[in-house]
């Protein structure tokens, strides 16, 4: 009897040792990588939106400038910098990258644990019912106490955890390694996009600035002193916006490049125990992403103020 009582407990202790109680290095690293990736993805999406909006403003300013000339611009000729198809594929691929990073983090942290806990608990409870039924239906005399049933549940959970972790340990690093060249190709493409956006944004601001200057000069005395003062005051704000946008796009490009390097380190660390360099890279990536996070919000709020 005593032997039977202690067996589930011993099994559970042994399996818990095998399964491990704390987060594995892979779980910690993938979780940190996922958070950093989510920031880069958000910042990149915001950069696309901001660049397309800015280009629309530049085209609109050209439309206004040419309105009363002998060669007015057809408003229908205003086109988005990136068409719908282009924005859609970029959005989808960024979402795909976010899902990838989130999934490896979920898998590595054992996100299915609640279901496993439920199944293991049900199993222990059913074992208790089985022993009760056996006891009353037969003369075998097997009885299972609540403690023993709980021990069986714990042992099953530990076994499940162990099997899950073994699956993760063998499969996830392979996926990460296989994804590495794709992340590199993707980040190179995103970086190439940012190069174009930087160049375009720079000229869009220049256009808006010159059209604003031209508007003030042509308006002459048609503007009241107060109105003229307000319009002139917009000029330095446009110059500041140009500089800030370029700085932030440069930082975003740097974050994107860091993402590739960090994923490469993640792929290497997935099969190695030395993760010190990876952790440093993740911290660096996360910090640069956080610096950018509020910028696009400030851009939207400043453009709203401009409209007012």
């Amino acid at each position, binding site marked *: 009897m005593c032997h039977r009582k202690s067996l589930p407990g011993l099994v559970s202790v042994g399996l818990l040792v095998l399964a491990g109680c704390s987060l594995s290095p892979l779980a910690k690293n993938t979780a940190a990588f996922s958070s950093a990736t989510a920031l880069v993805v958000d910042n990149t999406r915001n950069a696309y939106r901001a660049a397309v909006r800015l280009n629309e403003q*530049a*085209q609109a300013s*050209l439309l206004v400038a*040419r309105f009363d000339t002998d*060669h007015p611009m*057809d408003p*229908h*000729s*205003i*086109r988005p*910098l*990136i068409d719908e198809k*282009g924005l859609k*594929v*970029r959005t989808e*691929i960024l979402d795909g*990258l976010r899902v*990838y990073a989130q*999934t*490896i983090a979920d*898998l590595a942290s054992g996100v*299915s644990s609640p*279901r*496993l806990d439920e*199944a*293991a608990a049900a*199993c222990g409870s*059913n074992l208790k*019912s*089985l022993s*009760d*039924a*056996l006891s*009353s*239906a*037969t003369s075998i005399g097997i009885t299972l106490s609540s403690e023993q049933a709980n021990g069986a549940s714990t042992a*099953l959970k530990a*076994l*499940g955890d162990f*099997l899950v972790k073994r699956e*993760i340990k063998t*499969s*996830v690093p392979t*996926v990460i390694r*296989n*994804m590495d060249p*794709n992340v590199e190709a993707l980040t190179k*493409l995103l970086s*190439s*996009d940012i190069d*174009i956006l930087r*160049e375009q944004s720079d*000229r869009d601001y*220049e256009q808006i600035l*010159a*059209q604003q*200057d*031209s508007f003030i*000069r*042509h308006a002459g005395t048609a503007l009241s002193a107060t109105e003229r003062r307000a319009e002139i005051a917009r000029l330095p704000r446009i110059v500041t916006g140009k500089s800030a946008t370029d700085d932030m796009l440069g930082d975003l490009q740097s974050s994107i490049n860091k993402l590739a390097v960090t994923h490469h380190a993640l792929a290497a660390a997935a099969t190695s125990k030395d993760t010190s360099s990876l952790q440093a890279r993740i911290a660096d990536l996360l910090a640069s992403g956080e610096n950018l996070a509020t910028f696009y919000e400030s851009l939207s709020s400043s453009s709203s103020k401009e409209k007012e």
Partner: protein
Amino acid sequence: MAPKKKSAAEQAPTAEGALQPSETSQPAETTVPPALTNPDTITTYQALYDVLGRAYWEASDIKYKDTIQGARDAIYEILTDLNRAKLDANTELFLALQPKVKASNKALGKIKEKISSITKNISTASSVIAAIAKVLSIAPSLA
């Protein structure tokens, strides 16, 4: 599928098109002329745009400013079209990369399924135990 004929609204706002919108009813050539994709040509246009920019701010006469900015606007439109073309080319590369990202996520989905099956196996064992217990619980009444 035959390529969709582009409307005037969809055409590139080239300097010429912007100057004479009524003449843009013909399908626009969306492919950038090879001469304009030459990095040297692009650099030259960019340099010209910048020089005209400096000239604009240095000019004091509004008529000169208008003339300079008119030329600058035309170069702006050419360079913008070139950037659109570069972004379109990147779109194709993104499209080519998309299935690879999807494949990775699919591989991760399979791992999730395997993990679910571990849980499911434990659930199945639990169901079997429950079923046996149920049979045993009615066994005395059958005896």
